[in-house]
C-alpha cells in the first residue's frame, strides 16, 4: 500500500487536522503502521448446488402446477356434482308431484271404477256372532284384531 493510500485510509478514520498541525514523519508515533487489508474470502458456489437448486425450483413449480390441476379437477368435479344434485333435486320434486297425481282421489276412483268397483249404497257393519271370537270384548262389543294393520296401515278399517 502507498503512503498516500495509507493516509487516505487513516483520514477516513480520524478527524481531519489542519496541515500546520500535521506532525512530521520523523515525529510520527511509532505505534502507527500501515495495515494491509485482508483478502476477502471468495464465495465458491459449487455447480452441483446450482443444479440441485434449479431442480428444486422446477420440482416445486411443477408440484404447484400439479396441485393446481388437481384443484381445478376437483372444482370441475364439484361443479358437476352440484349440477347433478340440482338435477336430482328437481327430479325428486317432479317424482313427488307424479306420486301425488297418482295418489289423487280422482285418479284412484277412476282406476277403481275401471276395475268394476262401485260406491256402496249403504254400509254393512260385520260383526262376529259369538263373544268367543278372538278380539271380542267382554262387554259384547267387538275389538278388531288390528295387529296386521301395523304392517299395512292403509288397510286399517274402522272397528268393528
Amino acid at each position: 500500500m502507498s503512503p498516500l493510500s495509507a493516509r487516505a485510509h487513516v483520514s477516513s478514520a480520524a478527524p481531519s487536522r489542519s496541515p500546520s498541525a500535521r506532525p512530521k514523519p520523523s515525529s510520527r508515533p511509532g505505534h502507527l503502521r500501515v495495515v494491509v487489508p485482508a483478502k476477502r474470502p471468495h464465495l465458491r458456489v459449487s455447480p452441483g448446488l446450482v443444479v440441485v437448486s434449479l431442480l428444486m425450483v422446477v420440482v416445486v413449480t411443477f408440484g404447484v402446477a400439479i396441485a393446481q390441476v388437481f384443484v381445478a379437477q376437483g372444482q370441475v368435479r364439484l361443479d358437476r356434482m352440484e349440477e347433478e344434485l340440482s338435477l336430482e333435486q328437481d327430479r325428486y320434486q317432479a317424482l313427488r308431484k307424479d306420486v301425488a297425481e297418482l295418489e289423487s282421489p280422482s285418479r284412484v276412483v277412476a282406476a277403481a271404477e275401471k276395475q268394476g268397483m262401485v260406491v256402496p249404497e249403504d254400509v254393512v257393519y260385520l260383526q262376529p256372532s259369538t263373544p268367543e271370537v278372538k278380539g271380542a270384548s267382554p262387554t259384547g262389543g267387538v275389538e278388531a284384531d288390528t295387529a296386521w294393520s301395523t304392517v299395512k296401515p292403509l288397510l286399517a278399517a274402522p272397528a268393528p
Partner: protein
Amino acid sequence: MILVALLLGFGGISLRLVHVQALGGDRYTDFGTSQRMQTIVLPGVRGSIFDRNGNDLAVSLAQRTIWANPTLIAHPVEVAAALAGPLRLDPVATTALAGRLDGRNSGTQFAYVARQVDDSVADSVAKLKLPGIAFLEESKRFTPADSLAHSVLGGVGIDNLGQSGLERQYNEALSGTEGQLIIETDVQRRALPGGEHELKAAQRGEDLVLTIDRSMQYETERALRAQIEAKDAQGGMVVVSRPATGEILALANFQRDAESGELVATGNNMAVTTVYEPGSVNKVITVAAALEEGLVVPETLINVPDSLQVSDHLFSDSHPHPTEDYSVTRILTESSNIGTIKLAQMLGGDRLDSYLRRFGFGTATDLDFPHEASGILLDPDDYSGTSIGAIPIGQGIAVTAMQMLEAYNVLANDGLYMPPQLVMATVDSAGQRHEAPSGKPRRVVSATTARQLRAMLANVVAEGTGKRGGITGYAVAGKTGTARKPLPQGGYLDGAGNYHYVANFVGFLPADNPELSIIVVIDEPRADIFGGTVAAPVFADLAQYGMRLLRIPPPRVTTAGAVDGSAQEIVAVVEQERVRATAATSTTIAAGG
C-alpha cells in the same frame, strides 16, 4: 431513421400503456370483472300446501322459460316459424312472436318466448339450436289433485304471486327469499378453482298444513256436483267441519259458468265470500235465544195459526193447518214460520239481534280469508215493521255458509263458539313445524240450552222435515231451510212471476256427542226446491262417509242397520270409539253391499 421509428413506436406504446393503466384503469378493471364474475340469482322456492295428512295439494317445480335476445336474431320470421312447432303456436301467435323477436322493432335484448314450459317442449326447442334463443329456470305451481279444493287454495300468477285464496292470504309466508351466487368463471362459464365464491342462500318459503282432508274434500266435491247436476241447480257450496276444534275438513264450491252454463269448480270461495238468505235454518237462533232467556222450555205450548199478519205482510206456514198449540220442539220439528215469529215477538228486536250477533252473524269469521264477507244484519233501529217476522225465519238477513255452520257448531259444542280454522300448521325452511294458534272459544249459550237444541234438532231429522238427512246407525241433528232468493234488482219475484230458491241443510252427528258438522247449500235448484229433499241427501252422503273416515262406529248395530233398539238386534251396544283419523293417507273404499 430506424431509430426514430423505434422511438415513435415505443413512445406510442408507452402512451397507450399509460392510458390503459392510469387513465382508463377502472373501466378496464370493471370490464374484466364483468367478464369473469357471474351472478346467479337463486330463486326462493315457494312453499308447498299439504292437507292434514301430508298429501300434496300444491307444489312448486322448476320449469324452463324460453327467452330471446332479439338483437342476435337476424331472421325473426324464420326463427318464429321454427319455434311454432314445438310451442304449438297458431299462425296469429307465430306472427306475434316474430314481431317480438325482431330486434329492429323492439330494440330490447330480452323478450320472453314461452314461460315455464314442459321439459319435453324445452328439449325440443333446445335441439333446434336457434341463434339468440336461451333458457332460464323459473318455478311453476302445480296442483297434483287437479281442481280439488281450488276455491280454498286459490291460485298464483305466472310470477308466483298469490292471486286468490290461501295462496294470496299466505303469500308472504309461502314465498321464499331470493338468493345470490357470485362466482368467478372461465371463458366457458365454469367456476375458477380458488376464484371468488360468494353465496347468499335462497330461503325456501314456509309450507302450509291445512285442516282439509283430501279424501273428504274429494267426496264432498263429488257429492255436491252430482246433486247440483241432478237438481239442475245453478251452483252450491258445502262446508264440513269438526265442531270441537273448528277445523274445516272440506270446503267445496261449484257454480255454473255464465256463458257456457257448464258446472265448474269456481275459484271463488263462495261459502266464505258470498252471502245468502238462509231461510228456516235460521230459526234455531230464535229458539236458542228464547230458551236461553228463559222465556220458554222445549215443552212450552205456543198457539200457532197457519198465518199471521205482521205489519203490512201476511206470513204463513209452509202448509195450511188449523190453529193449534205447538210445543217449541214441534215448532222446530215442523219448521213453523208462525211459531218462530211468535217466539221472536216474545224476545223483541234487540234481544233477537243480540243473539244473532253472538252466534257470529254480521261479523267475518277469524279465518281472515281474502274477500271474506261479514254478512248483512240490520241494526234493530233500522228494522221495518216486518223485520221481526222475516228475520227469525231467515229472510231479510244474509249470512255466509261458514257463519251458519259455525252457529250450529255452537250447539254441537255445548254452547261454545269455536272459531273456524283452515290452517293447522306451518313448516319453516328448516323443517320445523309450528302449530297455528287456534282461536279462543267464547260462550254463546249455556250447555243446557245447547243440549236442549241438540235434542230438538235430532227430532227434526228423526220425525220432521230433515228425515232425508238421517243415516243408518247414527242419531243426526239438523235443520232444513228453503229460502226465497232475493233478486239483484230487489224483490223476490222475477219478471215471469217465479220465485228462485236456496235449499240448505245444516246439521251434525252423532247428535249426543257431535264429531262432524256439515252445511249444504244448493243455489236455485229447479227439479226440486226444498232443503229437506235437495240438500239433506247430500248431507246424509257426506255424514256417512265422514263417519267412516273418522272411524266413528255407530252406537249400536243391528242386522237391519237401524238404531231402534228393536228385537232384531243381534249384537250388543258397541262402545263408541272416537278414533281420530289423522293417519288416513288414501281414499277409503268401503266394503258395501
